[in-house]
């Protein structure tokens, strides 16, 4: 878990996905092969643009590692036409609504009980008025 997180830190901190030069699809997270057409012609692409909440769940049945974070608000977010699954933050269950505008922000995901290490990743929060600028 510790090394996995370290390996993926750029992905997790900056929403680095993939753009396929063969079929043109963009997807998340980064993969060396295109998950749509199998091509090797894949380059890293940072996900940017307007983020909108497609759907969400208020998750109560979470792992022990996440029990102090419960309930977790898990969303399917469309960011510039690419869908990702990620946690929401800075919002209460009663305020969440499908279709709402969001912005990415770096937040704690879990605390590893044994090592005490804290893992960070991009979460999404409601866009704070105006044009907003993608929270990094």
């Amino acid at each position, binding site marked *: 878990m510790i090394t996995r997180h370290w390996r993926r830190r750029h992905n997790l901190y900056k929403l680095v996905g993939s753009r396929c030069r063969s079929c043109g699809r963009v997807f998340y997270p980064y993969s060396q092969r295109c998950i749509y057409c199998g091509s090797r012609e894949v380059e890293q692409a940072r996900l940017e643009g307007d983020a909108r909440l497609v759907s969400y769940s208020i*998750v109560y049945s979470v792992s022990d590692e996440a029990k102090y974070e419960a309930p977790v608000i898990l969303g399917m977010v469309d960011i510039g036409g690419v869908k990702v699954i990620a*946690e929401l933050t800075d919002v209460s269950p009663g305020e969440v609504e499908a279709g709402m505008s969001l912005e990415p922000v770096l937040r704690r995901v879990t605390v590893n009980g044994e090592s005490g290490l804290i893992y960070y990743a991009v979460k999404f929060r409601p866009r704070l008025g105006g044009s907003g600028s993608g929270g990094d």
Partner: protein
Amino acid sequence: MVGIIGVGMTRINRHYGKGLRELALEAASSAVEDAGVNGVDFIVVASSLSYKQVGQLDLAGHLASYLGYRGSRGIAVESGEASGLAGLMVAYGLLASGVADKVLLVGVDKLTEYNSGETYSHLEGLYDVEGDGFYNIGHAGIAGILMRLYMNEYGVDRLTMANWPALMHANAKVNPYAMLRFAITPEKAASAMPLADPITLMDSYPIGDGAAALVLARGDSGDVEVSRVESSTGYPSPAHRDDPLFIESLRDAVARIGLSREDLEKIDVMEIHDSFTITAYMILETLGLSDKGRAPRDVAEGRYNGGGAPVLNPSGGLKARGHPIGATGVYQLAELTLQLRGEFPGVRVDGAKRGLAISLNGFGSSSYVALLTAR
């Protein structure tokens, strides 16, 4: 030709007093006795969560002695929730190619060795651990997202969604191998404790242990034939699909097995992978048995319990029979075999000739389909 000549099942439950070995032995002994054979030359073990819960590796090697077959050939198969049908695919290949004459397929899993919080963490491994599974998705978070998406997309209310669990509990009530043998109303299912809102406790499979086994043989012995087993791999996440509610790997597995929508409508009985209420509806609409957004109403109108379409999950399904992850596919096959023999000890589909098992991991990272035919 590959036939099923024996089946055995244990009741799914929180078997605190029984380990993986005891459960496997119980199911395997019934299957071997049912088949009336002395030995088998290959053991295929289907298991998934036990690698995290019990920690035993080389499961086939270690189980063989305990089952009384030391010296036979053995292999273990892990494909998450679809492990059982993946095990059938391996067994089928061994028999059809002439490598083996008789195969014992044992599906077995333990989910209750730890408290539920730890088990949820193990179950997160069914999803992409470097993608969606990096977040705190629990076992039901992705399902919750998909269920809300479905309800919003098609304007289906919470109570209408609950028709599925009500039907499954009605079926499981009379299945002696089912974990949850009690009826519930749609109202009760819709208002139960939330697990991953809008998913309640009654939209989800229960956490339980179990084992089921088959003896398969090359040639024309046995009342039931394995006509085909097929599969396809799919996207790591439903978020990768244009329509997250459509399971393309299932469509592809069904196409590979050579069944059109009209063929599917003529199947007598199906055991499908209703890990959650939403999974059942996604499967029905992916197969084209229900139009998009219609599955919950079709279920309410009785289409799938004797109303003309295939009878679905007379066992009670993953929802109420139970879902011991890697063993579930073998339960589906054992139940269908008993249906085709006219011997299922619960809701029986009279005169059934063709049965279909459908198993997924997650929401389709793998999809498996098996067609069984009465001889």
